[in-house]
């Protein structure tokens, strides 16, 4: 489903300083897999996701989704993306927002209506669906964004910190949702700091440190807890800054 081959990206900050965000990264995610991507802050997880979505272009290497190059916008037709902090038009109501998202993905009004009703109920937003998002709590905004990411029934779901801002009730909701996606055979790519969730949900896990993939393996084959694994890998990678 996802294929990342030898991708490198360096950012040029002001005054000639350069930051290498991603270095010769190679990664594959098979169809139907739930892949967990973890790493310290500033490791390059978000950069990798942005490269995947063609928001930024790699200096070298190639990325493809479903055998289509990321330069082709058709590669994103089956992708549902949840960004790190909810990017929301707060002057719209949840329903208008979902309608907009659906229309952007080329859905018909009938399909949009059906799916939004379904998702609003599932994410417990049906009461507030008529109010403007500016009045929502952070958790409600996050759930609205997730609904928008799923409205077009994507085959690949990319979630960047899906649990952030949610209270325990919200987290249970999302957890069950991801589980459901897993059983539906969808491919899920999660980037998160909550290692216990990664352990429980994912098939495989990859640890990225300083722009490089330092460890990759099946969750079931972990010798210790993911926590300990993570700290070990980071130490080996010789990280000297805590971002």
């Amino acid at each position: 489903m996802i294929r990342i081959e030898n991708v490198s990206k360096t950012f040029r900050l002001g005054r000639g300083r350069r930051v290498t965000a991603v270095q010769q990264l190679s990664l594959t995610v098979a169809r139907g897999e739930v892949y967990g991507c973890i790493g310290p802050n500033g490791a390059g997880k978000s950069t990798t996701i942005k490269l995947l979505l063609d928001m930024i272009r790699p200096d070298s290497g190639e990325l493809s989704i479903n055998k289509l190059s990321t330069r082709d916008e058709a590669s994103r037709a089956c992708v549902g993306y949840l960004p790190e902090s909810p990017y929301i038009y707060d002057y719209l109501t949840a329903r208008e927002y979902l309608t907009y998202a659906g229309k952007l993905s080329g859905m018909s009004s009938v399909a949009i209506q059906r799916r939004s009703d379904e998702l609003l109920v599932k994410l417990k937003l049906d009461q507030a669906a008529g109010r403007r998002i500016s009045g929502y709590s952070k958790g409600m905004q996050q759930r609205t964004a997730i609904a928008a990411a799923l409205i077009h029934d994507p085959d690949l779901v990319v979630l960047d910190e899906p649990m952030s801002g949610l209270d325990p009730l919200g987290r249970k909701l999302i957890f069950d949702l991801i589980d459901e996606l897993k059983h539906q055979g969808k491919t899920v790519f999660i980037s998160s700091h909550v290692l216990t969730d990664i352990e429980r949900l994912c098939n495989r896990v990859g640890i990225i440190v300083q722009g490089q993939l330092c460890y990759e393996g099946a969750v079931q084959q972990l010798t210790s807890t993911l926590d300990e694994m993570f700290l070990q890998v980071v130490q080996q990678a010789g990280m000297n800054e805590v971002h």
Partner: protein
Amino acid sequence: MIQAIAWVTFLEGIRNKAVFGIALMAGLMMAFTVVLSGMIPRDIGKVATDFALSDATFAALLVVLFVGITILARDMERKTVYLALARSVPRSRYLLGRFCGLVLLQTVIMLLLLVASLLTLLLVKYMYPDFFGKVSFGLVALAHLFILVQMSLLTALSILFSMIASSSFVTFLLTTATWLIGSSTQEVKQLIESATAAQVVPFTKLLVEIAYYLFPNMALFDLKAVAAHGLALPGATFVFAMVYGVGYSVAVLSLAIILFKRKELT
């Protein structure tokens, strides 16, 4: 797809409190026009038309500078562009949708301003029927159309500048500067041409020529004098202004799309 983007852009504009403030300001200025007309002995209609059309121009300009640019800037700052671009929406179509939405917003506001202008002028005509002069209501409406085309062109320019500017304030400055220069190039060019050759340094002359052709000639869209005095507007002038406005906008948007396609959205 473009429709959905345009509609959402339009909603963002209409639901913005600034639009309400601008509308209120325009209404007050129109009311003031009626009061001011009473001070003029003879050409009351002309003065009322001058003020009504100037109010409309100013209000439309404020919408472009403070609502349009805010919408574009917020999109980039809050990364709400991701909503569309992370799906299979081509970048060119996204930008066109944005432009159409902003033009739709301008159109609606222009219609409201037209109604306000016509009401103001009708009131003045009712109060001072003998001194209304040769104001042409048809030309007043046409003047509003020209303002709309002008502001659509300015919107396209603001989109272009938002692609290259590092902050929304820079976009605001660039757009304002372009409007200021564009409004005066025709006058300055005529001034330079009428001055004797000895008075003007050739370098200045060249600079003025370049500025005249590079910057959009906003004076082309200024029909205030024509409407206020009921002068004749040749069809050729009308067609030329429309073609110029549309053509320049298309060129600017094309350039903006090219830049947007290459832009990195960190």
